């Protein structure tokens, strides 16, 4: 039931941070007909729901996560003409300003890359099994609630 890294070479779930330059180079390697690369990086904000946040902890469902992200990625390739794409999502403990997620999309023309990266992020937010837990400066720990705005963002892409 578990997936190996080679099952989904364009999906990475990892505790380690990622390097944008390195991931862009990897994404573009072997493709000469790329004119546009859109990279989205989600970062830990130091404020959520009006409260200071000290630690953000990301939990996921190993196996299902990779499958769900690959499905979103392939859906983007179906909808737009893309040369390559990659999704990296960190799990474990993170701190304000840390990078959480990378969605990078390469295409011949910019329009497709912009739409596809935005689409993947909107779908990822509501369709990939990740859960955020935040620790406030006073030590309070709470699970982050899902946002209505994320569900609305996803629904704008309904065909």
């Amino acid at each position: 039931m578990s997936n190996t890294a080679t099952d989904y070479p364009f999906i990475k779930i990892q505790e380690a941070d990622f390097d944008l330059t390195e991931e862009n180079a990897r994404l573009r390697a072997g493709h000469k007909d790329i004119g546009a690369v859109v990279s989205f990086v989600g970062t830990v904000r130091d404020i959520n729901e009006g409260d200071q946040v000290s630690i953000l902890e990301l939990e996921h469902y190993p196996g299902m996560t990779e499958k769900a992200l690959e499905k979103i990625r392939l859906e983007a390739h179906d909808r737009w003409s893309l040369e390559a794409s990659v999704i990296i999502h960190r799990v474990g403990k993170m701190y304000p300003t840390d990078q959480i997620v990378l969605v990078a999309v390469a295409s011949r023309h910019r329009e497709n890359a912009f739409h596809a990266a935005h689409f993947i992020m909107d779908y990822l937010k509501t369709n990939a099994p990740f859960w955020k837990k935040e620790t406030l400066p006073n030590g309070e720990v709470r699970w982050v609630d899902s946002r209505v705005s994320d569900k609305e963002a996803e629904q704008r892409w309904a065909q």
Partner: protein
Amino acid sequence: MVNILYFASFREMLGQADEQLPAEHKTVSELIAELASRGDNWKQALQDNTNLQIAVNHDVASRETTIKSGDEIAFFPPVTGG
């Protein structure tokens, strides 16, 4: 036997991450009813929760899905990644 997984706030509320149960030929709904009989926290997390998310074998599933031997059934709250 089937494998049952609980994630995030569910894991904490139910006090366990996973378990194995004989649940073949049941629907997810029937499995939930059985689990809900364990106590209020189970009933609240699984049966009375309109936001309950269900996955069977890593795919989103519904309460009507029928369970086969060896299936992996996961229960979790709405996702909040990204």
